């Protein structure tokens, strides 16, 4: 019985980068890119990832889209594939991507691979949510989402392990989307869009002096328990967006807004999905703490996906009352790079920079660098 895998290639993703344009969302930008001489990047990336699956030709059956959206990349490979969908070849749109993803999911794939950037990730998310594991093969310019393998080759490796059933679990990873218009106007505004479920390699290390990585959910729970056990009475806790912070709400047995900020006082819910104004109001005159985690693949602590916790909120609460939580796995995924803050306010950014103690478990902290 062959295992079913999906492949969607966004043929125009990444075209903007090499010619100096920031992405290719929107037909106008795309036309401009092609005029300057941009060539498609995605097919090459797709093929590099597929190369890592060599040897599994007898075990896998691909479901993909017509033409440049997958068929042409799979044709030269040894993989059996079914082309589904009713997308006419030619310039593809976001709607095409979403429809393709839905149809491929309905075909019953175990894993959906896609080549693209944040935009494509957003499309896939719209279509499938967390209903099927997804893995991004990076090809776009901007990669704020955390749903991609580090390189096309690594994405292929991870897919291979996952499809071979080799001790690879799944975990949720952020889908981010930068506001494109704001971006080209020199302003940055990123939104936390949602969470895809991606394969997550639990490394098997064959040496008696080391062990396998801690199970993500056990660690996340431990962190949440530590936060809750240290909660003080009559103190406001603004719980930022993210999956690690979500667990805090779960431990408290309170409803949680995955993408938004919830406010807790004396272990009861005071506000759900609060915006900046609501936050400022609720912390007025009371001791308050903020509980945040890093969002997205770039390691942002503030400024990407939790802008409700604005510079004003941070100033009111004060640096010492910010509780940063993250699993060590997430911190190490930053590869030694510092956590980032971008509140739009230089003074606040400065205040937040330096070193922060990140809660990584019960009575366990890691000192990590923060930069603006």
């Amino acid at each position, binding site marked *: 019985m062959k295992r079913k895998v999906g492949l969607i290639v966004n043929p125009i993703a990444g075209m903007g980068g090499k010619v100096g344009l920031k992405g290719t969302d929107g037909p106008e930008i795309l036309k401009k890119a092609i005029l300057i001489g941009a060539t498609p990047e995605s097919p090459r990336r797709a093929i590099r990832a597929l190369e890592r699956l060599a040897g599994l030709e007898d075990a896998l059956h691909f479901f993909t889209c017509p033409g440049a959206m997958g068929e042409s990349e799979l044709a030269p490979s040894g993989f059996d594939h079914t082309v589904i969908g009713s997308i006419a070849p030619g310039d593809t749109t976001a709607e095409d991507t979403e429809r393709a993803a839905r149809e491929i999911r309905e075909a019953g794939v175990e894993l959906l691979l896609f080549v693209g950037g944040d935009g494509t990730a957003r499309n896939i998310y719209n279509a499938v949510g967390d209903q099927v594991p997804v893995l991004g093969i990076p090809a776009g310019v901007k990669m704020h989402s955390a749903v991609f393998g580090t390189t096309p080759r690594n994405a292929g490796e991870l897919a291979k392990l996952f499809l071979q059933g080799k001790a690879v679990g799944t975990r949720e990873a952020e889908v981010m989307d930068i506001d494109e218009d704001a971006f080209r106007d020199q302003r940055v505004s990123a939104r936390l869009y949602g969470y895809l479920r991606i394969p997550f390699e639990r490394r098997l290390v*064959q*040496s008696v002096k*080391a062990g*396998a990585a801690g199970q993500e959910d056990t660690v996340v729970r*431990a962190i949440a328990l530590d936060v809750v056990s240290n909660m003080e009475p009559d103190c406001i806790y603004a719980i930022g967006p993210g999956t690690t912070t979500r667990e805090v709400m779960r431990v408290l047995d309170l409803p949680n807004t995955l993408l938004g900020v919830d406010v807790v006082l004396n272990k009861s819910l005071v506000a759900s999905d609060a915006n900046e104004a609501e936050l400022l109001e609720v912390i007025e005159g009371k001791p308050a703490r903020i509980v945040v985690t890093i969002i997205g693949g770039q390691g942002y602590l503030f400024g990407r996906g939790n802008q409700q916790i604005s510079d004003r909120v941070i100033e009111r609460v004060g640096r010492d009352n910010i509780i940063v939580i993250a699993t060590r796995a997430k911190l190490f995924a930053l590869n030694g790079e510092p956590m980032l803050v971008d509140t739009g306010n230089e003074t606040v950014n400065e205040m937040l920079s330096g070193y922060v103690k990140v809660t990584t478990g*019960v*009575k366990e902290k890691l000192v990590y660098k923060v930069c603006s």
Partner: protein
Amino acid sequence: MAKKRSVVYPYIPNSVAATRSEMLEKTGVKDVEELYVGIPKKLRFKRPLKLPKPLLSELELKRHVSGILGKNKSCEEHLSFLGAGCYQHHVPSVVDTVINRGEFLTAYSGSNYSDMGRFQVMFEYVSMLTDLVGMEVAGFPMYDGSSSGGTALRICARVTGRPEVLVPETVSPLRMKVIENYCRNSEIKAIHRVSCHPDTGLIDLRDVKAKLTANTAGVYLENPSYLGMIETQGREVADLAHENGSLFAVGVNPMSLGVLAPPGDYGADIVSGDTQPLGVHMNYGGGACGFVAVRDVEEHIAELPALMTSIADLEEGEGFGFTLFAWAERLSYAARENAKEYTGTATALWSTANAVYLALMGPQGMKDIGETILQKSHYAKKLLAEIPDLKMPFPSTHFNEFVVNFDGTGKTVSQINAALLKRKIFGGKDLSEEFPRLGQCALYCVSEIHTAKDLKKLARALKEVIA
């Protein structure tokens, strides 16, 4: 004057001058000093270490060290009745042969591929030990019987989420030092001592009942107890504990389990102890080899801090192998601070000795040795009971050790033991400071190595000494 030879060290092959130079050259360095540039000059140790002149030849070394060891009197040439947690038994020659195999002796942390033999031995040890003690799961051995007891208690606390434990008052004070230190600032906030009946030494069930509360994580019992008696109320304590939502942990002497019921049979959730009696020389206490064993209950196994290995299928074809770690998230290696206590090097070579020992003994051997020990120790007790002025304060049956009271003699145990020493006898351990309420008492231990002649010699010696 003849020149002294320049030194090449047999254990350091590259100390040959030519090799050293060649390696320096290939490393691109003129002097080894250059390799220490990373250490700040200020922190460099500048003078030579003040150590004795070395004994460079093996002949001189052996003579020197064996000369010092020669000042010791061992239990080979002396008749010893010491027990109290470390026991003299016959160590089969095959056991010593196997653990002196260089491959086992000098292995460490190779993989489950390169060291499959070691892993298989460990699996076999765990299989036999768990069956012997009536449990289902155990890990690599831990340090000793007392720290294993401490771990057992902390497991009770972690599993139940409760902060207090009950421990009998007859547990050795030295053991309590280990347990108390281990439980300080841990999941355990209080250790309550439970009284034992003054006339039997067995645990007082009424006091257990009285002390069991909603905060009690577990009840710990030793069987045989430190004072030697066989505890008969295991089932009752188990029931009381379980009714209270607490766990029941038992500390054992595995040598007794060929004839005594394993704690698994009377309701224990956790069993701990020291397997030194099973084929390991005493080594002045260096033979200690602790263990903690639990039932096949996920929540309990999850709390074991030890390294464990699982048998596994091969990916292709028939046969089996072993995993490097099993259920690795528990371990300090994987989880660092989040781990269950800590783990690492412990006493693995002794577990190899245990495995060989149990394989040689088999079920019948364990039964035979248990019976021989029972009969001989009861015979010794009988002989000593016949000596006027000596009292046997506890009528309860015992396994290998029993308490002897010397109050009637007007002499202290210390004096008596000193006199016995002159007769090349190590008398039983002095309990008078550990348990002042018992008066001038000593703990006499008998093993299968004692002949009837030896026991009569003891009786005669004591008679002379107290006269």
